[in-house]
């Protein structure tokens, strides 16, 4: 079996007293789009910068493309493309000029025009970068990371600050990278983004991975539970609810919440009770938690700990 593109075992990073990374393990296989998800300050960028060779680690093992990134040499850099969280461009130059410059840094660069085409900047190829929109600049960032034709691409929060349509376009671009056979390591604080793009997701909170797996399964049991919520009808008190419901429900004021794997029996019980009283169930909602909810729950639990 070929070696994984990224292998991390027991990674720790401390800044003085503060432990930013508290023991992380992860593996990314070739050709995978891997999303690293977490709120600001969770340790995402620190972890990525260790993998990119920018930061030393305190302890643990890190192998990226068969080498230790802290000893990254020129040939390793040839294989790795970086889209940093924030990196300005020279405003006076055009995308074509900046790309030609970066292409010169690599021994086997991708063709500049082809790279411009990959990110869909054909129409802006000869416009000075100062006049590009935020989304167009981000595409140029991706193009600069691709022009060396790397095997592995790090994208650090590629869509932060984008409006929804720019985000959709960026997603299409990133999805297209998979077809080029690239391994992509993506950090984001949007669950939606991870869900749209990634084969696998790891959620980091306070320096630890709190969940990992495919985006569909990551919530596990939590997404299997359906939440029923409604307000107590006028004139009814919590004590009036049918007893099986009362036993499972969380009641705050007149707001009643109830989680169930199969909502049908509970709903039959409730609707029967309400019909009998002739009152209805105001504000009734039946919903399955989204991955976003699961993610926020996981992160909250970790913070509350």
């Amino acid at each position, binding site marked *: 079996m070929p070696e994984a593109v990224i292998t991390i075992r027991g990674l720790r990073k401390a800044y003085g007293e503060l432990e930013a990374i508290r023991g992380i393990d992860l593996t990314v296989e070739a050709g995978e789009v891997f999303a690293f998800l977490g709120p600001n300050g969770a340790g995402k960028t620190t972890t990525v910068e260790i993998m990119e060779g920018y930061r030393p680690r305190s302890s643990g093992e890190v192998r990226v493309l068969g080498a230790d990134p802290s000893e990254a040499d020129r040939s390793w850099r040839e294989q790795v493309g970086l889209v940093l969280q924030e*990196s300005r461009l020279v405003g006076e130059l055009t995308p074509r000029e900046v790309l030609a410059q970066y292409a*010169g840094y690599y021994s086997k660069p991708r063709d500049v025009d082809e790279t411009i085409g990959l990110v869909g900047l054909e129409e802006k190829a000869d416009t000075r970068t100062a006049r590009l929109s935020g989304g167009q600049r981000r595409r140029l960032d991706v193009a600069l990371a691709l022009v060396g034709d790397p095997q592995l691409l790090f994208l650090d929060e590629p869509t932060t600050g984008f409006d929804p349509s720019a985000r959709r376009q960026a997603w299409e671009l990133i999805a297209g990278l998979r077809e080029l056979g690239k391994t992509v390591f993506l950090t984001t604080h949007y669950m939606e983004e991870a869900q749209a793009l990634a084969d696998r997701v790891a959620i980091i909170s306070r320096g630890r991975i709190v969940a990992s797996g495919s985006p569909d399964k990551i919530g596990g049991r939590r997404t299997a539970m359906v939440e029923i919520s409604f307000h107590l009808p006028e004139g009814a008190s919590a004590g009036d609810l049918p007893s099986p419901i009362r036993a499972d429900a969380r009641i705050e004021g007149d707001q009643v919440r109830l989680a169930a794997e199969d909502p049908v029996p509970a709903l039959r019980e409730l609707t029967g009770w309400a019909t009998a009283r002739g009152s209805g169930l105001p504000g009734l909602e039946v919903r399955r938690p989204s991955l976003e909810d699961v993610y926020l729950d996981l992160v909250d639990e970790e913070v509350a700990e």
Partner: protein
Amino acid sequence: MRSLRLVGHQFRFDQKVFWRNPASVFFTAVFPLLFLLIFATFFKNADIHGLGVNGATYYVPAIVALAVISATMVKLAMNLSSEREGGMLKRVRGTPLPPWVFVAGRVGNSVVISVIMVALVSVIGALFYGVPIPTSTLPALLVTLLVGAFAFSCLGFALAAVIPSEDAAPAITNAIVFPLYFLSGIFVPEDEIPSGVLHIADLFPVRHLFAALFAVWDPATSGSGLELGDLAIVLLWGIAGLLVAVRLFRWEPRSRS
């Protein structure tokens, strides 16, 4: 071989970036010429006591010194600190481009701009103010120029290394160079400066670069015009700058995380 080609590649890029940016062209190329026109016109026929030259002959080497320092130390300190804070240096550092090639491209860029500026100042001095272009002292001029540009480039990297943020760059850089220009006789003729002040200026490299350049233009110079003592002090400052830069220069933003 490939590395040398890469230095050329990087140098051409830096040149393109420089000439396309109106602000950088103004501050590095036009500003010193304006100073030359102002000072050489006002003090054209003034007799600089003790040196036996007229004002124009005095200000041509003075502005050459200023132009070299602007093209090297000032330009590098401002550009590098702003590019570091903007994450541009970090991005370059993430490519296979060897750091020394990047540095060589930048220093080459500054040296070439310095040479162009020296040529412009000399020609303007000759055409408008009758200050002869150095001939017998031309080799001394070239040596002085190279030593000066190298030393002040090193100081530019050192200064960028200690500048904490983008906003602080112009303030810190100007707070260093402008007083030194005044103390060292670049703006105010040196016969107007108390000797105690000149002794202070003698500690710093600006005054010595100017002194070496003045010897090149001074009609009283009879030999080669090479002021080895002054150049040695400029070079020492450059080496000190290099050591600071090697120790403290960072490619990643300092003001964020």
